């Protein structure tokens, strides 16, 4: 093994649970501290957690990281997340990461569009923007006020589908308005595909850069199973389709390159 390889600590590593609590009726925040030195995750990157005896690890975007400490925001959806929900303070978590690509932070007035648990990585991105004093506008969309809870972000513009909190409607209905109002130069988004697809369309119309963080089910997290392979376009040559793997080339992509299903 050469010198640069030994520096990497991506091996399956243990972390200790510091906290694991509900932030809304079906959303949780897991806070852990890694036992080994963590390569600091960047916004957009993910970690993959071994869930009990499940054959496939579960991937989660990092929602906050500092030194050896990091957090994920998750919804309980199936067996894997049920296992994570039951983790108690002091218990150990087997994870690999950070994995995948990160958002490219530029000194441009930016719009963050986070839908549901997609708000997590946007919060992390906002933290980095604040540290670098880059201005941003944060749109956080949820189905209903019971889904919120994550909104420890007073500056986020809350939007709920049913209008029970903040502005009413779909988050996509507010994208153009905020782009114009806040003279946005770049968009970052993480959320359901239809939201990101719409955001990408608007970005294209207005000739703005957009980065999207995509989620797909995969088996390996490390770029070999091809489970998460998607079609992407070459921006300069849109007729040419290129296969990219979410876990390796993504999860963050140039939004203009995605072929939405």
């Amino acid at each position, binding site marked *: *093994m050469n010198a640069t*390889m030994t520096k*990497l600590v*991506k*091996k*399956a590593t243990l972390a200790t649970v510091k906290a694991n609590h509900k932030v809304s009726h079906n959303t949780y925040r897991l806070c852990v501290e890694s036992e080994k030195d963590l390569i600091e995750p960047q916004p957009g990157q993910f970690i993959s957690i*071994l869930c009990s*005896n*499940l*054959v*496939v*690890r579960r991937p989660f975007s990092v929602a906050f990281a500092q030194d050896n400490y990091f957090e994920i925001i998750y919804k309980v959806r199936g067996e894997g997340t049920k296992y994570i929900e039951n983790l108690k303070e002091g218990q150990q978590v087997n994870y*690999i990461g950070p994995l995948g690509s990160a958002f490219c932070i530029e000194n441009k007035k930016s719009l963050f569009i986070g839908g549901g648990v997609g708000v997590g990585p946007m919060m992390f991105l906002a933290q980095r923007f604040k540290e670098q004093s880059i201005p941003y506008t944060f749109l956080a969309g949820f189905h209903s006020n019971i889904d919120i809870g994550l909104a420890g972000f007073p500056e986020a513009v809350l939007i709920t589908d049913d209008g029970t909190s903040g502005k009413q409607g779909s988050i996509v209905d507010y994208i153009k308005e905020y782009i114009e109002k806040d003279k946005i130069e770049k968009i970052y988004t993480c959320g359901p595909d239809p939201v990101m697809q719409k955001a990408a369309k608007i970005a294209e119309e207005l000739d703005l850069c957009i980065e999207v963080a995509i989620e*797909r*089910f*995969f*088996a*390996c*997290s*490390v*770029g*070999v*199973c*091809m*489970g*998460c*392979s*998607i*079609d992407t376009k070459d921006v300069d040559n849109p007729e040419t389709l290129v*296969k990219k793997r979410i876990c*390796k080339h993504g999860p963050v992509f140039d939004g203009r390159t995605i072929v939405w*299903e």
Partner: protein
Amino acid sequence: MGVKQNIDLSVNIGKMKLKNPIITASGTFGYADEFDEYIKVSNLGAIVTKGITLEPRKGNPQPRVQDVTNGLINRIGLENMGIYPFLEKKLPIILKEKNISFIINIAGSSEEDYVQLAKICQDNSIEAIELNLSCPNVKDGCLEFGKDPDTLYRLVSNVREAYEGTLIVKLTSNISYPAQMAQLVQKAGADAISAINTVKAMHIRLNYNNNKFEKTTIQGGLSGPTIKPIALNFISEIRSVVDIPIIGMGGITYVQDVLEFLSVGANAVQIGTANFTHPTISEQLVDDLADILIKNNKTSLKECF
């Protein structure tokens, strides 16, 4: 972690001399460079590449993988870059790390494809190839070649004629007469048999919507610990009728699993789905195997079974 001194784990498969019997299975280890961040790949016995075809393949649409109890169903559909880009782009990376034995897994949609791929491997001095005659996820061939005795015999014989290196034939358990097929593979001149490929399987998800069940189906190949008993039985059956080495696989996760496969007559093993669960597992198993030998006062794997 590394190779333990004075413990001989070596095995011979055809013309290949492997430093140990731990091989990573096709489709679960990429082209090996992906794992450099996790393990020292050269500590492994060998690696098998992702299945490679003559022309690039885009594979199947999403969704492609579904985990089930103790297993995984995949329907990737052999997405790969094709043999020529592989030789140009990936092979130099594999060769750069000296001391790696690697096996190219080849798949075709016709008998001619296999022969041509074998010729290309021959021309490029590839040490070993594994014929994928058992992928359940492509419509045009592959699995079918491994099912019909006449086709299997003809195909393996023709590949044998075109290729001088170590020839391994990967069989599926989705056949009625494993012993007969294994004998034909040996008679056709293969150096080894690897088994089992994934088992045809289906996952159903039902959502109750608008007063009726909506069904989502994923059909593909099942792998993981759940197929281990099928694999052990398959290998045990074919061991009694062939003399050539058998590379066993199917759900191997722990060193006990490795020993079980060796005990039914496998000469080496492949690690597949477990690479997804634990990216460091293959190297760990080499180490664990050496430890077991030490613990039982053995100095060589050959003394064990």
